[in-house]
Each structure stands twice: as structure tokens, then as C-alpha cells.
């Protein structure tokens, strides 16, 4: 993997590590919004929101729109797609193995129940 992609992933994960920033992204998923509009649902100051927006911008997750007055923020999909593809690939590999483990554990439990039953029957026969 190319180093610039690795660095970008790192910035993306850092940006996503905060619930406010994730909420901002969720809001932007339904359309662009100004800083004031973005600050509204949160009980934090506009400078604090601006700080979060800077982190998101550095990570390439959002960009600033054309309107010089409103300076609307909008969602940029590429880094998110990279990050989720990367994690999903890793997760999927584990999940495939885990599903096999589910099957193996079922088998082991059936075997141990069967042998327990077998032992009980043998004991009962002995007692008779």
C-alpha cells in the first residue's frame, strides 16, 4: 500500500474517533450545511465545532463549498470508502474463520453431550 494512502487512512481514523465528528458527518450525509447550521444540534460553542471541522477537513472527509458567504461544508466520500474497505476486508477475513469456528464448536458440543449421555448409560447399565 502506498504511504500517502496509509497516512490518509490514519487521518481518517483519527477524525472518526470522536462522536461529535461522526455526528457532523452523519448530518452532512443528508446535504451540505454551514458552520452555524452544523453547530445547532450540539451543546458546544461554534469555535469548538470549527476545531472539529478542521480535523475533518485535514482528513479530507469534508470540503468547503463555493458560496463565499455561507462557506457550506460538504461530505467527501473517498477517504471514508478507503477506510471502510480496509476495515471491512480485515473484518471479513476474521468473520469467515469465526463462522467455521461456530460450526466446530457446535460439533464439539454435540460430541461432548453424546459422550456424556454414553457415560450415563454405561453407569446405569453397571448399576443394574
Amino acid at each position, binding site marked *: *500500500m*502506498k504511504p500517502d*494512502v*496509509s497516512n*490518509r*487512512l*490514519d487521518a481518517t*481514523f*483519527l477524525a472518526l474517533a470522536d462522536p461529535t465528528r461522526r455526528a457532523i458527518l452523519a448530518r452532512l450525509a443528508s446535504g451540505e450545511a454551514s458552520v452555524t447550521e452544523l453547530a445547532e444540534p450540539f451543546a458546544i460553542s461554534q469555535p469548538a465545532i470549527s476545531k472539529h471541522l478542521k480535523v475533518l477537513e485535514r482528513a*479530507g472527509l469534508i470540503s468547503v463549498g463555493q458560496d463565499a458567504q455561507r462557506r457550506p461544508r460538504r461530505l*467527501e466520500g*473517498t*477517504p471514508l*470508502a*478507503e477506510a471502510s*474497505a*480496509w*476495515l471491512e*476486508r*480485515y*473484518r*471479513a*477475513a*476474521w*468473520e*469467515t*474463520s*469465526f463462522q*467455521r*469456528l*461456530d*460450526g*466446530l*464448536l*457446535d460439533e*464439539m*458440543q454435540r460430541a*461432548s453431550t453424546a459422550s456424556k449421555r454414553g457415560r450415563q448409560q454405561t453407569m446405569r447399565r453397571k448399576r443394574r
Partner: protein
Amino acid sequence: MRTTIDRAEVTQPSDREVQVTRSFRAPQALVYRAYTEPELVRRWLLGPPGWSMPVCEMDVRVGGRYRWRWRSDENGAEFGFSGTFREVRPPSKLVHTEAYDPGTVGDDFPRNDAIVTVTFMQEGDRTTVTTLVDFGSKQARDAAVATGMTDGMEQSYQLLDRLLDEQPRA
């Protein structure tokens, strides 16, 4: 009370770690066996379909070694992991080092051994397994996971390459 996790979950507790969590409908002791008896391990720890595990040697005691190696049925490509057990607490915890052997598929990024901590927690009839991999540095983690640490598969690289080529450059 924590909820059980029916689908593998991957998180990054810090910039040098990756954590995988999954619950199983089985008692702790049984899950522990499936993780520590080589003849059981090689039946499930295989990654995507089409790979087999020709080498699975495990001497599960403190200071004991293990060696895992996978092979692609399709093209014979191989890679593996090996290391030493540092902590062995049946049926709840395992700690081992993990050195990556890129074999014929991986990258040649030089990295230190990772430390892997596996915990088994039973709740009712469920056991939740948490695997925490500490790569020692952010660079090592990025390199390991990005090049496909557990699924170091040529096919995945090709998919990723294609994906990255399709993405417009920022």
C-alpha cells in the same frame, strides 16, 4: 452487562493496536480448546475460502513456540506467523508474540514482533473472545493491516489496488 457480538467487530483502541471481538454460543472452556489445540485450530483459522493450513504447531505453555503457515490451494502462495507464548491461563487468557513471515505473498516491511492478547469471557451460554494485537508502533500496524496481515492474500491485494486506482486522488 455487555452485549454479545454475533458478527466480528474490528476496532482500533489506539494508533498501534487493532482489536477483534466476537461471541460464540459455547462455554469458555470449549472455545479455549478450539484456540489452543492445533488439530482444532487448523480446522477454522483459515481466512477466506481456498486456503489451507499445512503447518499448525503449538506448544501452549509459557515460553512454548507456535508456528502457523497457510497455503493458497489455487496458486500455492504461502505466508505464516510464528511466536512464543508469554502467558497461558486456561480457559480465560493467552498472550503470545507474533512474527509475520511474508512467505511468497506478503510485503517485506521489516517490523518487530506484535504482541497478541486473547481473552475469553463467558456470559451465560456465550463466550466472547477479544483479540488485541499490539504492533508496537503506528507504522507497523498500518503496514501489517494494510498489506493484509490476517488475510495476506494476493486476491485481496488486487481488489484493494483496483479500489485505490478507481478512487480519484485527493
